[in-house]
């Protein structure tokens, strides 16, 4: 059992003060973090946040401007991509069009000097792993997007890399396939036990698949933690805004005591709630997620009066906009009873939320 814990905590990749400047433009400010062995690690952020640059530096396609990248403790500087035990699943898949699927998967093994028998066995295993054994002799052009995705995975996994890098591999697929591939990726990661470093701008994908998520914004780390940490305890406004939906209310911070802040809200009441990076006496932001607001109000919670301004029916959920006079609140209500009563536009209503669901964030 102790062994397992130590394996869990072993570092697959260490990023130490790594930054990148492209011709005067700072794509990535110095960042430091570790990626653990056997984990599904996600780099999440909007486009231009530096996540792909970071991935390309791990792969060796770009050199860090400052800092060091260590792979299983070994410094990667000066090591060209073809000497790093890291494989990449490219956004465009980058399957070799002049080779059959078998040849594509065998390519890396040949370059590593695997013997022919061992190579053939591994290729067959990989095709089976991604359920593509019937297609071995085909060329990539003859496959659908999802099939190409699977072959790209098989090709990258075949040489048993220390770390598998995935550069927005699902972005080219349609919605349904994307959902299915998420589950498949997660299963593959568990089966192979290989460390996955997954780059995406899709927060839902990140929450669904990751063991840990590193949220990048404006070229720096905004927060690093488990999906639940990041969703429930966002460390700043950027993270709360980027991950999921939330209501931001500008508040006056009255006092700060440890992890709690007391604020005066535009809703007319004063409340105390968990805080992050708030200094007393200034302005701050109160964040409350739409699904954490009760409609209609529940007893024992903080009640707010307002009127329904709009409703969007989304099947499983209905999204309401409630006008409280001072601010408009977005409220998400699960339709947990079939044909349950909808609230009408213009209808006066009281909503409520618990102080425990509120987060106070620095300005």
């Amino acid at each position, binding site marked *: 059992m102790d062994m397992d814990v130590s394996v869990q905590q072993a570092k697959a990749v260490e990023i130490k003060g790594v930054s990148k400047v492209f011709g005067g433009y700072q794509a990535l400010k110095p960042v430091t973090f570790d990626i653990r062995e056997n984990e599904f690690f996600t780099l999440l952020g909007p486009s231009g946040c530096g996540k792909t640059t970071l991935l390309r530096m791990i*792969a*060796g*396609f770009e050199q860090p401007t400052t800092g060091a990248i260590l792979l299983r403790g070994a410094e990667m500087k000066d090591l*060209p*991509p*073809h*000497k790093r035990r*890291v*494989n*990449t699943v*490219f*956004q*465009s898949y*980058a*399957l*070799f*069009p*002049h080779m059959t699927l078998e040849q594509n998967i065998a*390519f*890396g093994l040949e*370059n*590593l000097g695997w013997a022919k028998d061992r190579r053939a066995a591994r290729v067959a295993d990989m095709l089976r792993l991604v359920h593509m054994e019937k297609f071995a*002799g*085909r*060329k990539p052009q*003859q496959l659908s997007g999802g099939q190409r995705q699977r072959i790209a995975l098989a*090709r*990258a996994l075949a*040489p048993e890399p220390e770390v598998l890098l995935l550069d927005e591999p699902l972005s080219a697929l349609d919605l349904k396939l994307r959902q299915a591939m998420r589950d498949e990726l997660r299963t593959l990661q568990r089966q192979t036990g290989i460390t996955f470093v997954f780059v995406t701008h899709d927060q839902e994908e990140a929450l669904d698949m990751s063991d840990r998520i590193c949220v990048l914004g404006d070229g720096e780390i905004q927060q690093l933690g488990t999906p639940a940490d990041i969703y429930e305890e966002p460390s700043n406004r950027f993270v709360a805004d980027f991950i999921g939906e939330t209501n931001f209310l500008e508040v006056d911070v009255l006092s700060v005591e440890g992890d709690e802040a007391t604020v005066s809200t535009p809703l007319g009441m004063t409340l105390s709630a968990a805080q992050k990076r708030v200094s007393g006496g200034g302005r701050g932001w109160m964040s409350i997620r739409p699904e954490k607001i009760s409609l209609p109000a529940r007893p024992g919670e903080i009640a707010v009066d307002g009127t329904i301004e709009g409703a969007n029916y989304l099947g499983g959920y209905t999204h309401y906009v409630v006008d409280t006079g001072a601010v408009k609140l977005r409220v998400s209500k699960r339709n947990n009873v079939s044909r349950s009563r909808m609230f009408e536009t213009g209808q006066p209503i009281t909503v409520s939320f618990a102080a425990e669901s509120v987060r106070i964030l620095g300005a």
Partner: protein
Amino acid sequence: MSAAPGNARWNVIGLLPAQLIMLATLIIPVGIIVLVSFSTRGPYGGFEYVFTTAPYKQILFNEGWSGELEFNPQYLIVVARTMILAAATTFICLLLAFPAAYYISLRKPAMKMLLIYLVTLPFWVSMIVRVYSWIIILGNDGVIAKTLRALGLVDNMGSLLFTDTAMLIGLVYSYIPLMILPIFASIEKLDPALVEASHDLYGSRLTTLRRVILPLCRPGMVAGSILVFVPCLGAVLEPILLGGGKTMMMGNLIQLQFGAARNWPLGAAISIVLMAAVLVFLLWRGLRSIRREEAEAAA
């Protein structure tokens, strides 16, 4: 191709101008050459429309005094020599053009445009002038000979001019842009992610070149080779100006028959054989690649 059936008539009318131009500038002249190649040589040159296959026989046989045919390989030797020279030119062009095209494709867009423009620049100058300039470069008092002498590397080297080497240099110089352009186009189409994927999968630079870049640039290299090889077969200027007219090439042979030898039917027959050989080769290639595509589509 996918036009509605009702448009078929309009397609014919729309294509008519192009077809008329083809007819006037290609089909009729080739028809005349075919006709001439089957006619009889006139007593004072020229030709008479009397059907005979004699010109074709003359390519391989001498006609003896009593009309018996005697095998004579003189023209075959010219054909073989021309083929070898054209193949050598194509090969050297390939070797030089690929790195050049690759270098150009790696430049920034503005530089790329400039370099491609420079590659095509010689086409703006008359071919004769360009080939002539090599006489100055290669001649006994030319840049190369003078430099080598000044450096004391050679005392008295034989003239480079009027040799097969000079001819080869001239041909490579004349036709290399036709190799660079299609190869450049095929490298430009190459997805850079494929090169990265090869490196990512432990492929060294050499492996990547051999197994990914070269195979994917094959169409460009094939197109360039055809564009260089075919005009080399009929090259006239370089053998005269740089080869000194000492070695006979097919182009010169044909020119000679129409000119000094005044044997138009033989000249026409050699032209037709040359054209037919090229056509058969290209057709064979074309069919082969179509068949390969079909096989892949069916797989």
